[in-house]
């Protein structure tokens, strides 16, 4: 498979990259990990005139936790950088749980967290994780930077709200109010396949009491599903089996799965319910032990 012809530039600074995007007025695409973009151009689902390869721009490969507790992931942080990563295990357990489940180990050496969020695949692990954690994207364009909350960033399948001359340079997850806990579960037929259903949960705890809750779903609808509203009955309460059952049912009701070769829509909805129950039960046990 061959992509259509395109031009290629490998700028050394973000400003240069933005200038090229600006010049091509919507006909240029940013190439970071390329693990979605290159297959898409090989299949000729996209035929950009120009690829702007940002891999040579220094200083974008970081993942760090700032003193205020906010998490920052640069545009060239690869999936594998977030695997077995002590900072993420401590401060962003949902990210730590999802990292080893993204695609397959070879794709993870190259694909990027921010690129995956921008790709906005309804099956994407990171868009769901960012949504559950209440993250935002920092976009840089000719007039400086702006922050875009996840719900305003991914607006549909493969659709984000970056302007043609903007680059997503960083993903940010704000500091938690209390202690952040969470997890990610994904059912896939085999490694690297599209998932049957995935659930991201991120809670903020004060002792055994939940003070903030975010849940998002991937692969069970035409877009990343923000189920945070369905999780709000957790807030202000300890996690009890009754509450888990209520939230799991409410979250499953937000799923919009379609029957396909990976399972019926009822089956997928049941998986969502089971995953929410498993994650919350696990978090309840850990918070009891910690308290």
């Amino acid at each position, binding site marked *: 498979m061959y992509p259509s012809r395109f*031009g290629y530039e490998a700028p050394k600074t973000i400003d240069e990259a933005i200038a090229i995007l600006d010049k091509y007025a919507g006909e240029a695409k940013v*190439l970071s990990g390329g693990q979605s973009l290159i297959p898409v151009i090989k299949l000729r689902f996209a035929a950009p005139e120009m690829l702007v390869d940002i891999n040579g721009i220094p200083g974008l490969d970081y993942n760090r936790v700032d003193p205020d507790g906010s998490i920052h992931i640069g545009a060239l942080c690869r999936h594998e950088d977030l695997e077995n990563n002590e900072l993420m295990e401590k401060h962003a357990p949902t990210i730590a749980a999802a990292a080893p489940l993204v695609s397959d180990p070879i794709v993870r*050496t190259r694909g990027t967290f921010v690129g995956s969020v921008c790709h906005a695949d309804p099956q994407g692990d990171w868009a769901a994780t960012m949504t559950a954690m209440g993250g935002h994207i920092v976009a840089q364009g000719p007039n400086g930077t702006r922050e875009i909350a996840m719900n305003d960033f991914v607006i549909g399948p493969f659709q984000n709200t970056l302007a043609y001359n903007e680059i997503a340079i960083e993903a940010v997850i704000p500091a938690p109010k209390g202690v952040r806990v969470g997890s990610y579960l994904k059912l896939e037929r085999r490694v690297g396949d599209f998932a049957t259903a995935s659930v991201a949960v991120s809670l903020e705890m004060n002792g055994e009491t939940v003070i903030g809750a975010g849940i998002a779903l991937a692969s069970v609808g035409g877009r990343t599903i923000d189920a945070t509203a369905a999780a709000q009955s957790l807030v202000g309460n300890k996690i009890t089996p009754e509450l888990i059952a209520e939230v799991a049912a409410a979250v499953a009701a937000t799923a919009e799965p379609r029957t396909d070769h990976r399972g019926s829509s009822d089956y997928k909805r049941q998986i969502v319910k089971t995953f929410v129950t498993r994650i919350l039960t696990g978090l309840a046990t850990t918070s009891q032990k910690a308290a």
Partner: protein
Amino acid sequence: MTSLYDEVQAPPAEGVPTRRVTIKVNGADRTVDVEPRLLLAHLLRQGLKLTGTHSGCDSSNCGACVILFDGRPIKSCTMLAVQADGHSLETVEGLASASELHPIQEGFKEEHGLQCGFCTPGMMLAAKALLEVNDDPTEDEIRWALSGNLCRCTGYQNIVKSVLWAAKKMRAEAN
């Protein structure tokens, strides 16, 4: 200078821009002119005649085209040749020396880790990347590290044994 279009396709039409790139392949610098859309797997196979890198599914699934890019395993069908400019690649041709096999190759021979051999180059390079960061992997860790590489013959059992064999030999050699 190598023309990369002899077998890949007709030479680029007049006016189609190419870029000159220099890539270290198995330790030697290679300078070539490539059209930006040329895939790295095709540069290796057709351009540089290194046909040990296999092109299996051509859709980022199978891992037969895995090579090491600055030491990390990547799918060479999912990277552009121009992206390798200034980088260092290792293909299966870089494993054996003139006189002896690499321990990973020996392991595949000793433990019957291949049948048709199509997936083997990718398997061996993914295994090499694993052993560089973990010289004593468990069977589970090997299965996990190779989970992006498909084999349609062996059922994986002997591939895992081959990597265990290689790890043991490489540890013994290091001591």
